């Protein structure tokens, strides 16, 4: 075959493929946008990729609560979905698809920091509400500032570090502790370390950080380093409960049992199945919500009866609910989803957001896109009981634990 012919075939194929690519969108929605009080939300998440549970829980929460919220506020919400494949390029592509081809009124997600980071500027410039329903890094994915369009119903890393820091940096037996932090080797984890380090410098407390690769076979060397550094106040800030199990296993092996052991609600995913009661003895976790509270109870029972079993990511389900409630109210106030700035203003001025029987008064404001406030009195410390299934027990608020010990 001559090169000329090859060139022709190549050109044809290239053109054909480009042409087809242009034609194929990912639109799974084709709603009529004419109705008043209606809005289209583009949901971005890792349908494929290493952490599809974020995608699953978001979708389930939408299936579960969107109809109820639509009815409650009399708005019509349409959802269109785009897969970010767990990569930044995928997120960039997904956000373009929802913004430009599906022409959504608001973007929800991506839930993971690395992907959110890639699209932050893009969504900001598009000037449409950005609904963050998953914990992310406050610096990498900010919700404040004049051009702010982002709203977050999950805690951000700064707030988490702030509140957890209040417990972890508190003196032990009248002396400053040595604080250790084990974090996932990702953007969220790295930011947590930075915050802790700054905090430590401000308070003259030694901070030792060790990062761990997701899926690592053991964490023995990290534990021996923490142990050698004399850490007695430990924070495990990992994205996967299975990895936390690897950590506590290695802690057991190395006989490392610091006075304080705290984690985040991520410990609820998989951890209890993989660790044993002896390993979670004395391991507490911090969250803005009380998982034994009535709002959570209602959400979990609805989830259970619909999908059988509890969610992997409690917080994603809860925060998606909160986000839908906030956005639906704002659309109602603005009259339509496609008046982006009206919706934004409405979000900033919401009187309250409700999740079941729980409400957050004046959650957002100009320059404040955070639902949760880093107030130790509002956050809860929880742990597991000694039963093999490890029921969640609430020990009290963080402030309570700081004051009286938990």
């Amino acid at each position, binding site marked *: 075959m001559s090169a000329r012919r090859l060139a022709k075939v190549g050109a044809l194929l290239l053109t054909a493929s480009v042409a087809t690519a242009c034609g194929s969108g990912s639109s799974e929605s084709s709603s009529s946008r004419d109705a008043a009080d209606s809005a289209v939300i583009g949901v971005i998440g890792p349908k494929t990729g290493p952490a599809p549970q974020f995608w699953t829980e978001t979708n389930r929460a939408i299936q579960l609560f969107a109809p109820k919220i639509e009815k409650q506020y009399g708005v019509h919400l349409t959802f269109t979905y785009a897969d970010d494949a767990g990569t930044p390029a995928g997120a960039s592509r997904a956000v373009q698809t929802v913004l430009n081809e599906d022409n959504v009124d608001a973007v929800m997600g991506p839930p993971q920091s690395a992907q959110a980071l890639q699209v932050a500027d893009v969504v900001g410039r598009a000037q449409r509400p950005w609904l963050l329903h998953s914990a992310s890094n406050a610096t990498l994915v900010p919700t404040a500032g004049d051009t702010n369009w982002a709203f977050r119903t999950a805690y951000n890393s700064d707030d988490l570090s702030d509140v957890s820091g209040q417990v972890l940096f508190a003196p032990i037996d009248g002396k400053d502790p040595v604080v250790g932090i084990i974090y996932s080797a990702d953007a969220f984890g790295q930011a947590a370390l930075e915050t802790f380090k700054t905090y430590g410098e401000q308070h003259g407390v030694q901070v030792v950080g060790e990062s761990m690769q997701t899926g690592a076979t053991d964490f023995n060397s990290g534990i021996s*380093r923490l142990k050698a550094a004399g850490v007695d106040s430990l924070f495990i800030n990992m994205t996967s409960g*299975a990895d936390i199990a690897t950590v506590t296993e290695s802690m*057991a*092996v190395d006989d490392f049992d610091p006075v304080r052991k705290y984690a985040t609600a991520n410990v609820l995913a*998989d951890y209890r199945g993989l660790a044993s009661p002896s390993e979670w003895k004395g391991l507490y976790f911090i969250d803005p919500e009380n998982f034994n509270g009535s709002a959570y109870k209602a959400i979990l029972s609805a989830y259970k009866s619909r999908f059988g079993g509890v969610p992997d990511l409690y917080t994603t389900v809860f925060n998606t609910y909160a986000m839908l409630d906030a956005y639906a109210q704002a659309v109602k106030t603005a009259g339509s989803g496609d008046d982006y700035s009206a919706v934004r203003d409405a979000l900033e001025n919401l009187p309250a957001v409700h999740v079941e029987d729980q409400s957050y008064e004046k959650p957002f404001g100009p320059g404040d896109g955070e639902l949760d406030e880093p107030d130790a009195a509002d956050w809860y410390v929880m742990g597991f009981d000694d039963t093999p299934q490890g029921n969640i027990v609430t020990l009290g608020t963080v402030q309570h634990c700081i004051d009286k010990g938990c």
Partner: protein
Amino acid sequence: MMDVVVTGLVTGGLYALIAQGFVLTYITTNTLNFAIGEFMVVGAFLAMFLHGNVGLTGLLAIAVAVLVTGLLGGLTYRVLVLPFSTEGKHDTRWLLTTVGLSFVIVNLTTNAEGANRQPLGFGNVDSIVTVLGERVTGQQLLLAVVAVVVTVLLVVVISRTRLGGDMRAVSEDAETTALMGISPRRIGALSYVVAMMLVGLGGILWAAQTGVSPGLGPPLLIAAFSAGIIGGLTSLWGPLLGGAVYGLVTAAVGTALGSLWGEVSGLLVVIAVLIVRPEGLLGRRVEIKV
């Protein structure tokens, strides 16, 4: 110091067991199964299914799962390796087909079972054991012991039995072995079966401690691959030495510089070995005839 040595050696046992899966097939067929990590996953999921859904007892579930994983290995050899390794030693198509297979298995299990780690539900030696004054988990020690026992067994079988003689003959000159009435393809398939049985066993015992997930494979693939290369893919003792070296280096560097640099240092050792002594520490140098 002692703790680094003990942890390094004990974790090296797991790598060695999986690396044995590389060595066995390389000796007889000059090919490797790059979906080896996914065969661990398959073994573990099978065991979980057989125990949890079918209701087999732990040992029986392990035995059946190991056997089925082995048979799947044999099938892989027949369908994806043998037809893609016909053009001599420089033919590397089998490498790509097995990589393709690993994509398929990861994707299939992720779609069906989700990416989360699920507890296997049995088979975990849930205790801490003291070795030379250092604490290790019972499961890791079990894996290390299994690796040593398996290696010794393999060495005995291959040096003492008729089948072992056939295998050695195939590894030396497959064509001439065929002239002795022995099918090199059958020996190759058999070594794939045995190799993937070992890998399946390793996967199950490992998953018993850490849980089953489609993502179980890659971290161990890299470690086992490294152990195999360092020790030498043509020596049955290679995995033990390679696993020990890799385990020690990653543990020592991890303790000194932080655990994340451990794996990097292990990979650097692999590259150094490939450059300086491509046949591995215990491997046999293959002479090239002109």
